């Protein structure tokens, strides 16, 4: 076996340049970047268009013996979810318009009209029935998932309970005590784990992002590798290549070149996302809209980022190597998808397993699967974000992944060395293996 360099780099360089200069690459990358900028700016733009206006609700109180003012209760509930402080006197962050408004409906019929015209989000009518119970009627969105309606429902429940307590003879002070949240302290199993709830929200989003990005990279850029090999085979340039370089050099060069092109695309998208985030604040200020609080991502230690990179690269390498072998086995480029079926299935299995795993990151099966080479690129980074696997586990997963990659490389170059010279309708794995030989 001869060394990998410098031919691997020549092959990788050609692959990269051809891919990056291709029209489809340029168009796709530009469109993805635009889409990402659009998504990051969407809350601001929607806010400016008035779609995301703060809720405005009118209250028609027909039961006038209420202890607490329903306007104040509702206002507080809406404020908390809008992200502002519960204190109505607090100075608004971006203009008075941005605050939710609850008004007492002086003319219920006019208020109802305003709701129908879209000037108000809803009208809450509070009455007392013959049993003395409070009854609520909400005119507004019929959707049970409508945010404003959900908040109003919660506030109504609190009002009803408060009212019942008063009728049972419990004073306002005592009832305030009843509504106090209990003392609840969560103690993490890992004493070093000092992440708070907000961190976990960010970690969850990041874990999803890592899983999705890994999956898309494997499917898209892995497919590039297979396509490119099949193309070389079908336009017969392969015979020149195989006399000039070893199968291993060609194979690794292809994986590196396609991978680098894919990474370039990712970099463009990430930069676009960053630009979108950075621009969204000044833009929203200029438009006079309150920008949504940007998601705070958890602070990642360099060692964590490093191991994410390692999992991503090794995982992509493993799948891409096998994709190259698949490409060498087909005669026509159109057959690549079908031949890659088992590989796609494997990648999908890991993807869906990690989605199930994100909801129970501490379970045994997730811990076990996160060590298995074809799944660890998804599951181990997700586990690292959501729980705390030991350093030993992480290293073991990396070592297993690297070992599998080495074996895959050996098998794939054998398949490749035979596959690229075989032409026919259906080339089975067995016939390729029989025709294969140990590469130089």
């Amino acid at each position, binding site marked *: 076996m001869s060394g990998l360099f*410098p*031919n691997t780099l*020549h*092959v990788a360089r*050609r692959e990269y340049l*051809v891919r990056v200069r291709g029209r489809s690459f340029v168009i796709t990358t530009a469109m993805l970047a635009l889409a990402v900028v659009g998504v990051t700016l969407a809350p601001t733009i929607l806010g400016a268009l008035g779609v995301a206006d703060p809720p405005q609700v009118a209250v028609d109180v027909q039961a006038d013996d209420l202890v607490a003012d329903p306007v104040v209760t509702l206002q507080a509930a809406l404020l908390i979810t809008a992200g502002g402080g519960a204190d109505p006197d607090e100075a608004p962050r971006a203009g008075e318009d941005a605050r939710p408004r609850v008004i007492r409906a002086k003319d219920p019929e006019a208020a109802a009209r305003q709701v129908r015209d879209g000037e108000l989000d809803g009208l809450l009518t509070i009455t007392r029935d013959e049993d003395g119970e409070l009854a609520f009627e909400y005119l507004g969105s019929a959707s049970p998932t409508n945010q404003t309606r959900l908040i109003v429902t919660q506030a109504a429940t609190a009002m009803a309970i408060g009212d019942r307590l008063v009728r049972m003879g419990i004073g306002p002070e005592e009832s305030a005590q009843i509504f106090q949240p209990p003392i609840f302290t969560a103690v993490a199993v890992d004493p070093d784990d000092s992440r708070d709830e907000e961190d976990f929200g960010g970690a969850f989003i990041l874990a999803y992002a890592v899983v999705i990005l890994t999956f898309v990279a494997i499917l898209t850029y892995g497919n590039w590798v297979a396509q490119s090999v099949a193309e*070389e085979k079908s*336009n*017969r*340039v*392969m*015979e*020149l*290549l*195989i*006399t*000039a*370089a070893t199968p291993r050099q060609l194979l690794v060069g292809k994986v590196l070149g396609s991978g680098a092109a894919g990474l370039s695309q990712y970099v463009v998208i990430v930069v676009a996302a960053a630009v979108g985030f950075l621009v969204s604040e000044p833009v929203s200020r200029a438009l006079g809209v309150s920008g949504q609080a940007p998601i705070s991502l958890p602070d990642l230690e360099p060692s964590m980022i490093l191991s994410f990179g390692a999992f991503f690269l090794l995982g992509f390498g493993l799948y891409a190597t096998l994709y190259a072998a698949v490409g060498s086995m087909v005669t026509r480029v159109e057959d690549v998808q079908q031949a890659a079926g088992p590989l796609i299935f494997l990648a999908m299995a890991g993807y869906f397993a990690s989605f199930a795993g994100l909801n129970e990151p501490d379970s045994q099966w997730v811990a076990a699967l996160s060590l298995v080479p074809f799944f660890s690129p998804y599951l181990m980074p997700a586990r690292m974000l959501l729980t705390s696997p030991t350093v030993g586990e992480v290293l073991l997963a990396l070592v297993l992944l690297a070992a599998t990659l080495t074996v895959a490389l050996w098998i794939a170059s054998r398949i490749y060395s035979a596959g690229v*010279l075989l032409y026919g309708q259906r080339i089975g794995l067995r*016939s390729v293996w*029989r*025709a294969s*030989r140990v590469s*130089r």
Partner: protein
Amino acid sequence: MSLVVDSISKRFGDVVALDDAAFSVAPGTIFGLLGANGAGKTTAMRIVLDILRADAGRVTWNGTENTALPRRTWGYLPEERGLYPKMLVGEQLEFFAALYGVPRAAARAEIGDWLERFRIPDYLDRKVEELSKGNQQKIQFIASILHDPEVLIMDEPFSGLDPLNVRLLKEAFLEMKGRGKTLIFSTHQMETVEELCESIAIVDRGRVIVSGSVRDVRRAMGRRVVRLATDGDTNDLGWLEAMPGVSVTARREDYVELHVPAERDPASILRTAIERDERVTLFEIADPSLEEIFVEHVGRRAISDEEEHLAASGREAGR
């Protein structure tokens, strides 16, 4: 000191591609590999190049086994032409040169030189897919020699070329020979072989039937060809056919061609003609042409193949 193909055999499943095939090529010569389609020429070339491994036998170049030789020893022009269609000619040639370790500057100079020689100097920045088949073939030839290989192996290099390009490629062959290179190529065009090759091998069904210098191969046929023209009636050839061993193989408008067995002196035909008072206008003694030799060795099988094929299609039609 030469390229020695030492009794190599290769099977693909049930198909015997090469069966104990052996021949040798002297350095600095041009060698022709002749054979019908599917005879095993391409497989033999691939084994020499170490793209395929033989089941048995070995290949040596100047005493070193081919598995131990660096890849840049060989220059290969595959039968199936293939280049990257979307890449520029210059970029593409530089890429292949780089794979063989040729520095870019040296490759550029050589590429310019060869494009000039092939009379396509302004194609450097064209995409390959914009070129005609013949010009693509020239580019591929250049790709196979940029690294200055010692041995050039060309699978059907002349197929699909127009006469002008055939001429240019032949000149390129002679240029490479002049540089001391050894050339091996396969072809169906016997005139080209006669024009270029010092020695040949005829391959049939994976076996090397004949090999050696072109002259030896011709002599080994054990007969000679006589071309005879007289003023008389060319249809009255009974006297020729009456001579033992002599057979008329072709009647042309202005001469007849005769096969004369080795034991008969061709001059005896001329003597007989003069005795018969024929007015001889042409008498020529020649070795049998390679085409005849090829047809004689391979043709029988080719014909029986055709019969089988006809019989098969007859059965097909009868159903």
